[in-house]
């Protein structure tokens, strides 16, 4: 085997690949099962954006908190939320991460530092300021990461949080996942200043733009930004330019896309292909090793779906449970 030229050891590289592949398979499977009518409600898929969640989360531990978005499955998996519990939640089962009470848009696992996907766009930014404040008060070196799409970056909550984090010098990283579309509305139309780095600069913190389809670009930039925040260097913004393989939600016909756009991004900007070719070309990981992971991930997702379908539904007494801690 060749000498490893990467900033991660082989085990870590395999872990990153496994995480990205798990997210991809999870979402591809939901895409199929949703179309079959097996899944209630609606889901927003993270497929195509895996390098962003993974490149960032590789730097975090359970003590670090993240606040996610409506498109949160990838963040959950990368943060270590149990895949079986996630699948059961999406199927509305009592074995789900939230016992079937939350669904796709509200998966949370505070024990893993995952403060919830969020159905309210931009709502995670103030919450993560609070998580970072708690870490700062305790002095435990924890950091908070909030994800926001290019669309929700226009929310007042997001802009207010940039200011608050700067004023309180909180260990927060604001990650803008720029996939070019706020639902269906083009980012170029909806974001007046056109650059998230400009927004960060305006609030007195550094901003960085990276190619969000390149795991190593995200990993390296996030590493510097997170280390800085952990050490007390304050908040920063990371813009990841990336691509969404599916629509805003499942069932979206995506008529707003350019002709051939989806085919082109799948062919040239697939973060999983980019990562695997890079590590294989460097001679650090063999194709067979990645294929083994692919098989294991397929089996995992298959088992998660099987278990979810077999799991019990929440029952009448669950309806009134857990409104308050005590009343």
């Amino acid at each position, binding site marked *: 085997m060749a000498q490893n030229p990467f900033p991660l050891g082989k085990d870590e590289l395999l872990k990153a690949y496994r995480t990205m592949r798990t997210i991809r398979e999870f979402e591809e499977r939901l895409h199929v099962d949703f179309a079959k009518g097996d899944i209630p409600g609606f889901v927003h898929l993270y497929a195509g954006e895996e390098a962003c969640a993974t490149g960032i989360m590789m730097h975090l531990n359970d003590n670090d908190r993240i606040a996610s978005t409506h498109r949160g499955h990838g963040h959950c998996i990368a943060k270590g939320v149990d895949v079986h519990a996630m699948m059961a939640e999406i199927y509305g089962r009592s074995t789900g991460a939230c*016992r079937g009470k939350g669904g796709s848009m509200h998966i949370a696992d505070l024990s893993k530092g995952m403060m919830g996907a969020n159905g309210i766009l931009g709502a995670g930014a103030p919450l993560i300021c*609070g998580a970072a404040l708690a870490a700062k008060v305790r002095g435990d070196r924890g950091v908070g990461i909030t994800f926001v799409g290019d669309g929700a970056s226009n929310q007042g909550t997001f802009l207010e949080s940039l200011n608050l984090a700067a004023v309180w010098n909180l260990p927060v990283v604001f990650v803008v996942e720029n996939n070019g579309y706020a639902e269906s509305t083009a980012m170029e139309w909806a974001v007046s200043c056109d650059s998230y780095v400009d927004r960060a600069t305006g609030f007195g913190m550094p901003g960085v733009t990276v190619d969000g389809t390149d795991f190593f670009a995200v990993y390296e930039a996030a590493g510097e930004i997170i280390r800085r925040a952990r050490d007390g260097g304050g908040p920063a913004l990371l813009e990841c330019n990336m691509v969404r393989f599916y629509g805003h939600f499942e069932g979206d016909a995506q008529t707003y896309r350019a002709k051939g756009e989806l085919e082109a991004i799948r062919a040239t900007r697939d973060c999983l292909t980019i990562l695997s070719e890079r590590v294989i070309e460097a001679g650090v990981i063999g194709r067979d090793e990645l294929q083994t992971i692919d098989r294991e991930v397929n089996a995992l997702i298959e088992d998660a779906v099987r278990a979810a379908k077999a799991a019990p539904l929440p029952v009448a007494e669950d309806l009134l449970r857990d409104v308050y801690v005590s009343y």
Partner: protein
Amino acid sequence: MSRKISMKQAINEALDLEMRRDPTVIVMGEDIVGGTGAQGEDDAWGGVLGVTKGLYAKHGNRLMDTPLSESAYIGAAVGAAACGLRPVAELMFLDFMGVCFDQIFNQAAKFRYMFGGKAETPVVIRGMVGAGFRAAAQHSQMLTPLFTHIPGLKVVCPSNAYDAKGLLIQSIRDNDPVIFCEHKNLYGLECEVPAESYAIPFGEANVLRDGDDVTIVSYGLTVHRAMEAATALAKDGTEAEVIDLRTLSPIDWDTIVESVERTGRLVVVDEAHPRCNLATDIAAFVGQNAFGALKAGIQMVTAPHTPVPFAPSLEDLYVPSADSIASAVKRTLSPKGARSIAA
């Protein structure tokens, strides 16, 4: 040891005691230090009306001034609560809830249920409510019905210094989000308050006056108007029982129903607007659960269905008065009471 202090001092004392007791308690809000980093910070404002004055000198950075940015800092308080702190966030005037309500009703109130019982959000959001301060339409509302409507929120509205201290201490210790409503016209009102720490449990109404002829239920400032009315009615031989709810969510149904079953008459007084408020809520509950005990139609005394007016001559008409409460009581006592409709 007990001494006479104002409701404002009682709230200050509750915060001080809880911050001493529990290092996870932090207090944040606009101007609550009122001069962090300024030369006079040791003698800084302590909130626009001085409720938190002096706490910064005692607790330092655990009191945090915030930018005028309610969504961000109320959300931060909620997020910090979900991560193990017990933040008390002052929203100055609870009317400002309009700009940060999402963080309260879509986030804080829902975490526990939405996350399958796996989250706790012990945050207190406290601020001023109520009219009579010449503060006009956007700084005077009694929005308690809005908060009470939301599952997951607890709502507290004390009528005196003693209750304010005990209920705020309980609010901070409670593991659910609590909206703590402080009537600004009661801040200066003094009563006997023990110096030591004590907590008043939620869901226990306070019977301020016993009586067998009619039950008057209220909370906040109008409790005092109800007491005035009861005193006046007693001169004519009518003995009113006056119940101070203290907490609106949870609410003490038992005390209300038990009283009405004895008196057969109910007047509910609410400073909120007349539709879908605590008065309609209580009237409906009693109508459904104690109809057989009622000797007359339930009377509701509320503010009118208007924004709070500025002109003193109008604002004085806005808040339910002792006279209007006494009139309502008289309607329940008249032979036609059962059929009359409040004017």
